[in-house]
């Protein structure tokens, strides 16, 4: 298989397989979680579940609880990574072109100069978070193989994508193959790892807010 054929496979069949694993895997996982169910609460409610649950999905994004030096770092770097990653993913013109081919519609891209910043921001934040994970006693104790694996899987698409845009390290075809492969690995890993929090965090927040709301706790 020459590089052109490989690229053809990676951006065709390969991507389709990865997308299928991602979509079916996440649907199955979320369905499985929901179907575990929970016991009906027989205590007389003081408040309601739905409103506070939905509010908590939104509000928990802005909780800055204690802001110890460690907490501050985690929150700031965490925001930098998520925002950098999502903006780069959804507002780079090449990404939008690709999504348009699948979805049938697109949106306006951000200028490359801004995408350069968001990509570097995400890369820098991820590196900082890795260093923090290793040196901070609490995070180091909590971390296992999966934490480092998911870090690497999140890092590679950013790194190869940045190299691709800048033409660093190899020719365009090879870099594109590497970038697409890293994206496919990430997509396949999401349903099986803590990366599933990209969806489950919304239901986790809902439960948290709903439990509090039922008791009339405004949290």
């Amino acid at each position: 298989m020459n590089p052109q054929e490989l690229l053809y496979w990676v951006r065709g069949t390969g991507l389709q397989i990865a997308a299928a694993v991602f979509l079916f895997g996440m649907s199955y996982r979320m369905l499985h979680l929901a179907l575990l169910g929970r016991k009906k609460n027989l205590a007389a409610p003081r408040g309601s579940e739905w409103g506070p649950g939905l509010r908590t999905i939104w509000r928990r994004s802005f909780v800055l609880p204690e802001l110890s030096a460690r907490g501050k770092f985690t929150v700031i770097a965490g925001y930098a990574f998520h925002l950098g990653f999502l903006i780069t993913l959804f507002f780079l013109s090449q990404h939008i072109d690709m999504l348009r081919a699948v979805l049938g519609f697109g949106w306006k891209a951000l200028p490359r100069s801004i995408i350069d910043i968001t990509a570097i921001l995400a890369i820098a934040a991820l590196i900082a978070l890795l260093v923090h994970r290793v040196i901070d006693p609490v995070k180091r104790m909590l971390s296992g193989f999966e934490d480092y694996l998911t870090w690497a899987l999140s890092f590679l698409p950013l790194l190869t994508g940045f190299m691709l845009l800048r033409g660093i390290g190899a020719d365009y075809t090879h870099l594109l193959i590497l970038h697409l492969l890293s994206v496919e690995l990430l997509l396949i890993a999401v349903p099986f790892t803590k990366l599933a929090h990209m969806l489950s965090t919304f239901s986790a927040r809902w439960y948290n807010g709903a439990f509090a709301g039922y008791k009339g706790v405004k949290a």
Partner: protein
Amino acid sequence: MNGGMNTSLQRGINSMIEQIDAPIATFFTSCVHCGLCADACLFYTETQDPKYTPIYKLEPLRRVWQQQYTFWGKLMLKLGLSKPVTDEELSAWEPLLYDSCTLCGRCSLACPVGNDIVYMVRKMREGMVASGHAPDDLKGATTRSIELGSPMGITLATLQAHIKHAEKETGLTIPVDKEGADYMMVLSSAEIADFSEIIPALARIFDHSNVSWTFASDGYEGTNSGMQIGSSDLAAVLLNRIVNAAERLKVKYVISPECGHAYTALRWEGPNLIGRPYPFAVVHIIELLDELRAAGRLRTEGMDDTRLTFHDPCQMVRRGGVIEQPRNLLKQVASNYVEMSDQGVQNWCCGGGGGVSAIERAEPLRFQAFNRKKAQLDAIHVDTIVTSCSNCRNVLQDGLDHNHMKTSVVGLTELIADHLAAKGP
């Protein structure tokens, strides 16, 4: 042991498997190991020991979830690549789940992915009890509750003596087993043992407000050690005493005492423990007093002008939703009231809830954790701390004595009783 797990361990693991519901599986799926919950926990902030990170206290439960409820976990277990939870592990986790967790629920507010961590600790304790890994002191307290009727070994005779004394002091009749009363009052062990002034205080307030009430000779103890240790079966046995008494006396309301976990047991866990809704409503004594105040039935006179603050019991605010009521009452009798930092839902625990104050070996750690409360108090220089949980009250007093602090601790109901206006027309 040879050839398999011992039965108590298997029972414990089975119990944990049973506890894992959609919320718990969702929480473990969502955890990204960010460590933010550590800073919400006073056992971590005051020791800086990573093992007190709230989510870490659930590690054995997380492994059970992973091995039983996830694709890779199941595969790894089958291939022998991950080891089942062991007795040694649960034994090592016992101090993390009991000595260093008051079920205060602050971590549940801090988690950015939204995990209700304390919900999981409460559930995991079920597995700890089933596997025989609960602290001996809590086992003792629970046994005394089941056999004698109170974790502190208090009997009906003790209560009757206090009632007699209170009747003499107030000149009022204190109803016991009065059928058809509107309200049935429940007390906590700590109140009967250490703060029996609550009994004349209640008698005077209810007389002032014309509340039809009664004690029940077979359902006066609200402290629920079964819930604290994490045994729903035993918690239900204890709770049923109150439910049966309330049904026998046909009351409309049961009043939860000034005791955080009694309130949670009675108000929120109770119907789920016994498997049916109550035919009566549960109201916290402070909720009731504030209702009476709002209705103009509870009138006070005179002001306490000492500088005082209010300590929010965790189970009343974060886990219970009773936040404004004590403040409404306090403002009516205290002219020099100041708030602590982090008051309300974010208040720091006294360090002794959830059974911790009953675990003797946990005392040094509890005093260390109290430094958080001490820092809050040092910042506002108050003469008096008012609270509405008799266990907080004991733990606060302990911590203040330990630190040679002169601040006094007062129960809110008694403070209100001390300022009752003369009975009006």
